[in-house]
């Protein structure tokens, strides 16, 4: 989440039942490292529901994150409140991703 949260920042994390687009969450990556990225939406595959996340400055969306790997929602510390603009931007990014995914499926079928 650099430059908002530089590497090595200390943050507070609170587990939640539901995460909404725009929330910044901490989770463990498949390689065991800790990551803090923003939630864009949800993704369902054969192993269940997962979160779609992305770093604010990253060029691409992360692989979907299993809910069992989410530590919680980040707040406090160097992080400020999530603004409405950030939430709208997360939703817009998720809709773009979903549209691309739908387009790919249609292209494969045809």
């Amino acid at each position, binding site marked *: 989440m*650099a430059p908002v949260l*530089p590497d090595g920042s200390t943050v507070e994390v609170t587990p939640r039942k539901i995460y909404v687009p725009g929330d910044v969450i901490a989770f463990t990556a498949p390689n065991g490292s800790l990551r803090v990225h923003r939630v864009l939406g949800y*993704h369902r595959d054969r*192993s269940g529901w*997962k979160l779609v996340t992305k770093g604010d*400055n*990253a060029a*691409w969306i992360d*692989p979907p994150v299993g809910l069992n790997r989410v530590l919680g929602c980040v707040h406090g510390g160097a992080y400020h409140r999530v603004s409405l603009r950030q939430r709208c931007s997360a939703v817009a990014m998720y809709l773009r991703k979903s549209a691309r995914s739908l387009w790919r499926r249609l292209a494969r079928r045809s």
Partner: protein
Amino acid sequence: MSFGCEFLNCPELFPARRAGEPWGNELLTIDFAGARYQCSGLGHDQLEVISDRFESYRVKDVTPPGQVEIRFHHAGENDFRRFPLRGWDYHLDLDYQPYGVRVAGLELMGLLEWRSDLAGAVWTSALDSDRFCEVFENFLRVVAQYRLLASRALLVHSAALVIDDEAYLFPGRSGAGKSTLSRLAVANHWQVLSDELNAVSLRGGTAYVQQVPFAGDFGRTSRSNQSFPLAGILALKQAATDTVDPLSVPHALGVLLSCTPFVNLDPFRRERAQSVLEQIASQHVAYVLTFSLAGELAALDRLTAKKRV
């Protein structure tokens, strides 16, 4: 420790040839840094997640000559060792051979061969899309490094900044300060190509830097396929002051070689990699950039301003 013991239950059963049961029939072709990679044997979910990850690098599935084929196969969960990942630093185990390279990693067995052209195969038990993406990306890094080497280019662990349409390369291994430098550069409104890996290629005696899809948290430009001429190599050193000091060619070569993953340990292909890096190091000025965490890259600013004058 012999090859694969850390990751595989039976390393002696490592596949001898590129064959096996594919995950599915899906195909994906990606293109970056002047090379194409055709990935086949993917399942539907795997294709979806890889397509999202490499969206801006996808191209139509055509088969031009020189394309690298990578086939994905199913492997049993019992083939791989399980161990706690907390505090574990991700790495791969590579076995260099004259005919190719064997790769073992977390839920990953990979084989890279030079039969007629470069071709790869992966065996994994990673069903979850996130775990599969990790396997895919880590093997692709190895394949890309060898494919680039064939065309006198290399992936270098580095941050790269673009200032006045020229690239400055900051090679450094993990913890050297690449992300810190990138953060300071973004604050200075400089374009960051990547804070993790960049492709450096030699064309007509000039080195160019290009973004690859292995950027870290920086590298916001979704796809910058443009090559930027290399203006300077700056080894990183964190200290309380901001200075730029000259670096000799042998030292610059040493820094570059230590930051060139996979091939720098390959006894069969290291010489070629070294010759590419020698040419890059000898043709470009190299410095040691000392910067502080709270600094504003004042020394680098002065250096680039001097160049402009």
